[in-house]
């Protein structure tokens, strides 16, 4: 696939919420193009509309106006079944709170999306074990989430996100609940997977550790794209990043 093709295209997206009687505009017209295989960080202070934008890209929420295209498909046009299929096959989600299904073992968590995708059980288990090995948890496949540390749970979540070979991995503050070292490990793992598998990683974050590995950083401020920086520009301005916030 050509590097230049866009996996995600967002045009003129606005989103308003009603908070009580007040109409709040979380997004005020966002245009964004994300190239396939890139590692993108969406940065911004809390309340900037970062998470809202993130949910739009993930097909978890629909824009008030404007369009979101994933793989050149307008997600507003999809019905519930197609949206479910999109979530299952095209997008892998990683959350700040891991969201491992508590009643299932690590392996069962990883195989669930594959079951949804119609894979038979044996093939799913085999692939699940491979994925757990990939994230370094091969010997813990039979553990329940409460027997795993935060970093390990997040690794299970990463393996689960990769289950159906998605084109996009959406990571919402993946390091938010992890300590410094574990967070770095998780970031490195995401970066490696993104490169090895040509998966587009989009992460909403305010973790500056993310910047080092990002191909592109999208700064969101007050519901608009403040600026988009590529990797090269970033290393120059990195001294100022700390003072930005």
């Amino acid at each position, binding site marked *: 696939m050509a590097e230049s093709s866009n996996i995600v295209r967002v045009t003129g997206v606005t989103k308003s919420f009603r908070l009580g009687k007040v109409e709040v505009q979380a997004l005020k017209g966002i245009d964004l193009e994300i190239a396939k295989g890139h590692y993108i960080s969406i940065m911004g202070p809390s309340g900037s509309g970062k998470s809202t934008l993130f949910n739009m890209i993930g097909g978890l929420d629909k824009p008030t106006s404007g369009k979101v295209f994933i793989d050149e498909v307008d997600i507003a046009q999809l019905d519930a079944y197609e949206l479910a299929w999109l979530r*299952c*096959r095209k997008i892998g989600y990683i*959350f700040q709170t891991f969201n*491992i299904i508590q*009643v299932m073992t690590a392996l069962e968590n990883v195989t669930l*999306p594959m079951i949804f995708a119609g894979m038979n059980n044996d093939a799913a288990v085999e692939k699940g074990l491979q994925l757990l090995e990939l994230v370094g948890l091969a010997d813990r496949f039979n553990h329940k989430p409460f027997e795993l540390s935060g970093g390990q749970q997040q690794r299970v979540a990463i393996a689960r996100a990769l289950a159906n070979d*998605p084109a996009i991995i959406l990571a919402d503050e993946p390091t938010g609940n992890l300590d410094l070292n574990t967070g770095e490990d998780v970031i490195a793992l995401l970066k490696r997977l993104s490169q090895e598998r040509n998966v587009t990683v989009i992460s909403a974050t305010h973790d500056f550790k993310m910047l080092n590995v990002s191909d592109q950083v999208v700064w969101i401020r007050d519901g608009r794209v403040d600026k988009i920086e590529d990797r090269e520009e970033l290393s120059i301005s990195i001294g100022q990043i700390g003072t930005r916030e």
Partner: protein
Amino acid sequence: MNSDQIIGSKKNLLSRDRLVVLPFLKSIEIALKSIKVRFFRSLITTMSLVLAVSFLGFISVSNEVANGLLATQNPELRQAVVRSGYDLGAEDTRVDSSPKQRWIVILSLLVCVVGIVNAQLMAVTERFREIGTMKCLGALDRFILRLFILEAGMQGLAGAGAGALAGGLFSLLNAVLRFGTVALIEVSWTGVFFSVGIATGVGCLLSLLGVLYPALVAARMQPVEAMRVEQ
């Protein structure tokens, strides 16, 4: 790996045959697991059902016993039945559940349904995050609905079965203590099994009825809302 599927074209994405699935056996497995993991909680949810159904079972098996004794046309046994609290007219050869009895049973079943709805709504709230996660992984509304209904069905079957058996046994025990072993000889066993079966069936039905609304709430929930819940 199957990289062709990653780079699905627009047509692939929109085609109808690309549906997410959840095989029935797998849903049963997940439902069983959920019950097992939250065993204590499931037990409490089921308890009100067990009690209500055992009451129903007790009443109807007791009636069977009384009918069996009356069918002997032995005046002494008839006296014993009257003494045990049944209002019998001079000509009556059967006891049928009196309106009062029926109302009490219906009331207890109603209370039980309300209890189940309450407990299941709590369970849904507790599992918001789990449901939302499943939806993010591609689960359809109907998977969630199915999981909840399966769980309730299993709980219902186990709870109602246990309740009906307990009620029936207790009723028979009570009959033996009151009338002697003649009660066990004269009672129509098909009637007893029938009563226990009906009580079990009613219990299952109530369990499913009770979970319907909570399951709909769970299934209709948007994944974003689920993710917003702090835990």
